């Protein structure tokens, strides 16, 4: 219930639009009621009072209601769809706003595209919350009220009966079907998630499954999940049918009750037979408002489930909170890392364990070590994606947690192993680094990064995740961004790790040229041109085990020398 109210709360800015749409929805059904009442009146009048003039009112009524129903329905559909899309926009922006401070620390578990896709689907499915969940009950309540007055005008007893059967159709039946259906939507969505995992495993792990003789196992599990899901969907459809049938029966009950309570009035002459016919038909038409309630019942559980998943994500506390009064970014860019420790949540192995070193302004320091040694953790802490559990990092004597995180990041250019490119033009991907850059500056940066070929293709689509570009081109694009960002500190995090030897060589040269005079931290596990660095920090299992220049480390004949030999074929 709490989740539901929170979801409804999100749609609040559109309360007036929603009210308008619900009112027009009510007017649509009202016209339907009017149409049937007028038709009944027309015919019965024609039968009883054979005069053309007497029919005039009825004929007009039929025309007005007939046309107005169509036109009002048209307006209702436009307004409600428009509102739905507005709500969807709002949900997207709301989610983005809420999730932005959490990235990436609190989203580590949602790294994979599949999981993110599910979040996007969840948001998409919530668009129904207005049109399918909130609006139908409102319309039904208004129609109930209307019929109370219409029928009550002639007979309170009849009106009570109609009210009773409408309360049954509007409250008792939905509650009953919600009760029987309890857990169905949740079960279906659980099974869908299970199937998704199984299908990904089946498709992507096909090779292993074959060799282990487990393909049959997985297809069988997939099939089983499908059967269970289908059984639940069958149940849902049965309940839907039951709901509709019960609504139909409630309607018939209302009709019989009207005849029962109003017929004596016709016999005694207290009521005109024409009126009775009109009332009967009007009540019949009014039940149209109760049919969409099936959808409300069916959607509410799924929506609440989607809402829960979203709230679960965004209710996390952000890892990093900007200081209220941030200090200005210091002039000096000497980096000092003191006694830095960090353990990822859910692990009991520290990723960093009391690491200290310093990078003087304008110097180049390499951080090396095997994978899993904690190298990349340093870069995450450096740009304040995480906070250290102990120790600190300072720039120019200023602890980085006193700086505005955005200011800090603007002053650190990061080139990482996997460059994320957005599915937009190359220009837009470059402008990220320098929103005000001119095309000339962009072309210049591309040329410096060795991408002259792209200079004339600024408007080309980079492709989904930059798939239209080769690995080397993407890394070069990242370097072009770095050049555009023009930051005093450069952080290279395995910038060339995914490339072949020839491309890597060329890129290292480019990086060397473009980073002259800046404070450079280069994280790598491949030992290339190590003599170019002023200092090398060797990390192993979260600790600094060796430190010094390349020749000195080789002479030491320790871990670094071992790595060097291993990579240079002397092992």
């Amino acid at each position, binding site marked *: 219930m709490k989740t539901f109210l929170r979801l409804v709360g999100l749609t609040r800015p559109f309360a007036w639009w929603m009210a308008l749409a619900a009112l027009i929805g009510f007017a649509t059904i009202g016209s339907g009621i009017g149409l049937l009442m007028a*038709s009944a009146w027309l*015919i019965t009048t*024609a*039968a009883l009072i054979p*005069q*053309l003039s007497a029919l005039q009112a*009825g004929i007009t009524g039929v*025309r007005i209601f*007939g046309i107005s129903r169509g036109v009002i*329905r048209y307006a209702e559909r*436009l307004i409600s769809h428009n509102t739905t*899309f507005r709500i*969807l*926009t709002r949900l997207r922006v709301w989610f*983005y706003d809420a999730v*932005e401070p959490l*990235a*990436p620390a609190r*989203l580590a578990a949602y790294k994979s595209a599949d*999981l993110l896709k599910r979040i*996007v689907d969840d948001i*998409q499915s919530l668009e129904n919350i207005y049109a399918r969940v909130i609006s139908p009950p409102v319309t039904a309540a208004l129609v109930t009220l209307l019929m109370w007055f219409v029928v009550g005008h002639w007979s309170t007893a009849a009106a009570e009966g109609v009210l009773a059967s409408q309360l049954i159709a509007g409250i008792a039946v939905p509650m009953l079907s919600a009760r029987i259906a309890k857990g169905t939507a949740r079960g279906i969505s659980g099974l869908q998630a299970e199937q998704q995992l199984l*299908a990904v495993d*089946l*498709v992507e*792990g*096909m*090779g*292993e499954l*074959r060799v*282990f*003789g*487990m393909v*049959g196992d997985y*297809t069988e599990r*997939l099939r089983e999940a*499908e059967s269970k899901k*289908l059984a639940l*969907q069958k149940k849902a459809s049965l309940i839907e049918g039951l709901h*509709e*049938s019960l609504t*139909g029966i409630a309607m018939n009950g209302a009709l*019989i009750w009207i*005849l029962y309570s109003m*017929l*004596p009035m016709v*016999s005694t002459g207290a009521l005109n037979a024409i009126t009775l*016919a009109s009332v009967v038909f009007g009540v019949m038409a009014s039940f149209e408002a109760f049919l969409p309630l099936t959808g409300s019942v069916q959607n509410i559980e799924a929506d609440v489930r989607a809402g829960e998943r979203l709230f679960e994500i965004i209710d996390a506390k952000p890892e990093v909170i900007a200081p209220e009064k941030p200090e200005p970014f210091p002039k000096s860019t000497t980096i000092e890392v003191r006694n830095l420790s960090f353990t990822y949540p859910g692990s009991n192995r520290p990723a960093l364990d009391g690491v200290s070193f310093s990078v003087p302004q304008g110097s180049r320091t390499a951080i090396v070590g*095997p994978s*899993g040694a904690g190298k990349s953790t340093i870069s995450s802490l450096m740009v304040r*994606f995480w906070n250290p559990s102990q120790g600190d990092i300072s720039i120019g004597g200023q602890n980085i947690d006193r700086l505005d995180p*955005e200011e800090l*990041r*603007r002053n650190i250019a990061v080139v990482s192993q996997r460059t994320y490119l957005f599915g937009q033009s190359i220009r837009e991907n470059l402008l*990220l680094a320098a929103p005000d850059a001119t095309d000339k500056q962009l072309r210049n940066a591309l040329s410096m990064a060795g991408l002259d070929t792209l200079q004339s293709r600024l408007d080309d689509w980079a492709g989904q*995740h930059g798939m239209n570009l080769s690995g080397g081109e993407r890394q070069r694009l990242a370097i072009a961004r770095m050049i555009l960002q023009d930051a005093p500190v450069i952080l290279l995090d395995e910038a060339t790790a995914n490339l072949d030897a020839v491309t890597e060589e060329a890129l290292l040269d480019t990086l060397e040229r473009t980073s002259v005079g800046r404070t450079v931290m280069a994280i790598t*596990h491949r030992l290339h041109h190590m003599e170019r660095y002023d200092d090398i920090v060797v990390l192993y299992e979260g600790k600094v085990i060796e430190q010094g220049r390349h020749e000195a480390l080789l002479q030491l004949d320790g*871990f670094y020398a071992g790595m060097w*030999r291993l990579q240079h074929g002397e*092992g």
Partner: protein
Amino acid sequence: MNIDRNLMRLLSEQKRPFILSGLSGAIGALMLVAQAWVLSGIVETVFRHAPAWQAILPLVGLFALFSTLRVLFNWAGHHEAKKGTLAIRKTLTERLSGTVAALGPSYTRSAQSGRIVTTLLKGVESVDAWFSQYIPQLFLSLIIPVVILVAIFPADWLSGLILLLTAPLIPVFMILIGKRASAATEKQWNTMSRMSGHFLDMLQGLSTLKLFAQAKTRRDGIEEASENFRHSTMQVLKIAFLSSLTLELVGTLGTAAVAVSIGLRLLSGALPFRPGLFALLLVPEFYLVLRQLGTKFHAGMEGVTASKEMHEILDRTASIPEEGSRDLTADEASTLPIVIAGVGYRFPGSDKPALDGVSLTIEPGTVTALTGPSGAGKSTLLNLLLRFIEPADGTIALGSRKAREFSLDSWYRQIAWVPQHPFLFNATIRENLLMARRDATQDEIDKALKQAGLLDLVRSLPEGLETIIGEQGARLSGGEAQRLSLARAFLKDAPVLLLDEPTSHTDPILEAQLRKAMAVLMRGRTVVMIAHRLESIRNADRIVVLDRGRLVQSGTHDELMSDAGFYRQAIFSSMEEAAA
């Protein structure tokens, strides 16, 4: 119109529920007519005689009966159609997953895996509406109008005539407007998927946005894209809604025409009251069912699109190679040589062969190292031995029997495989290991982990062996995944080992451990490995040098070094160089 041949074929496999659904719909239509007839009777009686309640009680009872029956038969009709639909969905899931499984890794790797998964799950769900809504509505829109016309003509032929004349207007309008609307709708769907793609893109790239301190400014971009989408969608919807408005007005005007004509004839006494009322009660139902066909038509559209995607997979069944039924025993696998004779392979869509006339005999219990530049065909050869693909020319045999004579299951029982990028399943570490041997004991698991150099890591995890890995859980690094794959190979303990040697040269301590572990693993087995390390190549019993799909040299390290061939010149020196 919206009749997809593949979907029709599926429909014909589930005739029973759909016929029952049609029958229920027909009975429901009869009940509708009966209900209207009784109701008109009640109203007439009330008018003429203003009777006591008891007098019309039997009629009211009949009315209740017919309307209840109508409700029940409609329900049954929907339910039967749903039942049939679910049966079809079940068959589809089975066939699709079966086909994907039979097509095997060579297919799943060549196609976009995300797309296969989507077709497998969402595709099947989206045919639902076509079967459970569109088809039953199609039946109803054939049955109900006919039943109503048959009922109305004897009662009031003029009303019947009006219906008969106006009815064709609805499909004509539907087709006229529908054509334009559906083209626009399709375009709109593309915009929509691009829109949600954009949002997904922003979420995935959030870290990048933050690195450039652009996360907040992009928020407006999301809003703008979303609003643009709303505007363009509303344009399309305006057309679509206008079309339903038109159809509704046709229905309303038709009803009004009938109502007025009945009214006038009642006035003049040309028509008795009851048949007039009866006709009028049925007229709205007549138009309603036709109009609903339009709505359901759109609901079913998605299914037709999905059907194309699904049959793109199902139609590949023909390309699945036959497998034999002979059981390969461990004894045969460890004593017979693997004979590769004149094997060639070409990737679909490529004009250059990946392998070309490769002949090679691999003696049992020996280590064969495959080497050569990238694209030489090393992986293709390994995939052929794994029977992920079938040779286009030549044969692969075990002793004197062709590989394809053996069943795939028994073939794989005798093979352990350590790929370059092992796949970890969304399951616990224990389950990921047990895949290799389901009945392994705790001691055997620990031993395998120790041999692969993973025991300490697993023990350091809070949940140990029960830690969930893969997409949903803790992610292991590439090196750790490779070691897990080694541990699987230890557990499987098969006579033949196919190995794509790990390339990460980072941790000298670990490296030494792994080297020892691999030596233990290879002992006493027939090993074919794609070798990246000089040492592994040197230690192999035989080195096979491949280049552009051809076998160019083979022999021991010493033999090849004494020969001034490709090996010494290109391979050996390039390896030295790449490492430098």
